[in-house]
């Protein structure tokens, strides 16, 4: 994936397109559809596993193991390989546990991959704070990592490599990724299930903003905002090594997400080997229409399936766990709900 192409001398900020910040994904669709290697996944199906009644003090490793196996994950493929677990620690604060991935889920995932013989590292580049140690301590992650003897990679301050942009929904020529990301054989996106006041909701795809190093892109990673949020979500995911998703939906967030929203207990763990399919399923559970979510419009049938007919549901049927996630009242969030009754 790394190329001999020389990286640009700058981090390539683009002209601010306010419409792109809000929705604006449609214009990029034609260009994206022309990317040859992406055509291979068009109309492929993908499995998504939903587990209910989950607790942070429950047998999460078993749930995650069941979910990965149910969605076609091959454990032998990670034996002796490097697996990077990427939780969301955007701006942890003890009084808002619904904002960030709970350490118990990360430790459980590490247990699963370690049992399968993988070399596991946890990595994150917090988007809103430069003191990564603070993010680890406030989230409870540091204590959990120490207890589990799990190494941590600070993705905001890492040795960097250059990777060509494989998505081309933005005009960014490529990305400066941390070496731990480039060298990973598998990246496990471990987002929080939550609403987002610009794009509706976010999950596994947007969580990978956190592999982008702050030292090159800023805090927040403003270069990506200028390039277009949905477009850069697409491009980052198109340019990364193989990813799978494990979503912390036990204590979720609704309302003014991704930072200031309210807690919404859901008791869910959602697992899948295709992040687009996982995010589409999250949306259905949260009572959104995934086809109206800007970054999923770009990803649909290119990075993975969004249509329900192409997603093989495992575990609990999503309709049985669906619950409306409240949103703030803002123009960019109107029209994201499905028409007519969703849950029967």
């Amino acid at each position: 994936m790394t190329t001999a192409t020389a990286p640009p001398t700058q981090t390539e900020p683009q002209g601010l397109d306010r419409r792109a910040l809000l929705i604006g994904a449609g214009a990029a669709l034609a260009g994206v559809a022309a990317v040859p290697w992406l055509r291979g996944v068009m109309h492929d199906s993908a499995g998504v596993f939903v587990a209910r009644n989950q607790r942070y003090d429950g047998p999460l490793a078993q749930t995650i193991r069941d979910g990965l196996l149910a969605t076609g994950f091959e454990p032998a493929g990670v034996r002796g390989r490097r697996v990077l677990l990427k939780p969301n620690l955007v701006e942890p604060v003890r009084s808002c546990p619904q904002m960030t991935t709970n350490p118990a889920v990360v430790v459980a995932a590490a247990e699963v991959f370690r049992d399968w013989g993988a070399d596991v590292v946890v990595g994150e580049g917090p988007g809103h704070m430069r003191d990564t140690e603070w993010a680890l301590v406030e989230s409870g992650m540091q204590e959990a990592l120490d207890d589990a003897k799990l190494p941590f990679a600070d993705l905001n301050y890492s040795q960097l490599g250059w990777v060509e942009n494989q998505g081309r929904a933005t005009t960014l020529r490529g990305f400066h990724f941390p070496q731990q990301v480039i060298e990973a054989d598998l990246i496990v996106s471990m987002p929080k299930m939550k609403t987002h006041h610009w794009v509706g909701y976010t999950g596994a795809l947007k969580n990978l903003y956190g592999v982008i190093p702050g030292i090159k892109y800023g805090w927040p990673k403003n270069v990506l905002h200028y390039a277009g949020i949905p477009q850069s979500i697409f491009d980052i995911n198109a340019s990364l090594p193989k990813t799978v998703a494990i979503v912390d939906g036990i204590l979720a967030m609704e309302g003014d997400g991704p930072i200031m929203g309210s807690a919404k207990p859901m008791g869910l763990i959602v697992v899948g080997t295709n992040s687009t399919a996982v995010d589409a399923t999250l949306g259905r559970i949260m009572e959104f229409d995934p086809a109206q979510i800007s970054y999923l419009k770009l990803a649909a049938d290119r990075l993975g399936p969004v249509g329900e007919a192409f997603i093989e549901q495992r575990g609990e049927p999503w309709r049985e766990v669906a619950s409306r996630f409240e949103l703030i009242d803002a123009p960019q969030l109107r029209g994201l709900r499905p028409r007519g009754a969703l849950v029967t």
Partner: protein
Amino acid sequence: MDYLDTVLRRLAASDLCNYHPGLPAATEPTALAAIALFAHGRDTQAARLADRLLEMQNRDGSVGVDRLDQTPGWATGWSVLAWRASQSSPVFRIEYVQGIDLALQWILDTQGALVEQTDETGHDTTMLGWPWVDGTHSWLEPTAMNYLALRHTNRGGHPRAREAQRLLVNRLLQSGGCNYGNTVVFGQELRPHVQPTGLCLLALGGEQDTTGRIGRAIDYLHGELSDRTTTASMCYGLMGLAAHDALPAESDDWLQAAAGRSLARDASSYHLALLALAALGNDCPLLPPKTAGRSQPALP
């Protein structure tokens, strides 16, 4: 200060200053380490780091974020402060002045992209400060860094410096403290963070504020800092309080606790430099000079 000797010895022995061991030399840790070593009288070791910064300076005056990356140049202000710290040292070199002049020109030529004011954000997005990356918005921390560099080089009265001062006060939360630079978004006030609050207060040392926000930021840090605060946040927090003559009595004990944790973990030169600077309390060389306030005229 039992810890300080260890911190300084390790820092003086650092040939590469970085955020974590094993990474390339980075500008911010190198500059902070140079400033700290000059302040603690380790001039020879400090000069070696100041020389490294000269080697890393680009022809346009900016200094890239690390030895391998020529951009972005957000850490250029720290380099200015490092070279400036050599001024009363026997190892002072004229090349440092040339580095400062070139860097300041780049700083004054660089600004955040203008953003139209909207109802969604509570702060004034039309104020000009400095971005992390050229061509993007102005953010609080790079603005504070460059404002500090201007104040320390007798340019506190420059129009860019005055606007930076207004931006920093504007980005302070009404309820106290600040974060990366947003205040109110979609009607909700965001949460403050210790590290940017400390840096912002450091840059605003000695400034008059009729809004009361600086006072509330000081109150926020007094309420938030403790012996458990993480190293970088602790150090920036204490330097910010020192800039306003508001250091808590427990600060030495807190620094000792933070140093113990840092030395036991990865002992990054970034953390060691911050510890050495914060340990200087009211004598920290990063505190703005008393004469570099609002009425200071800009030098040509």
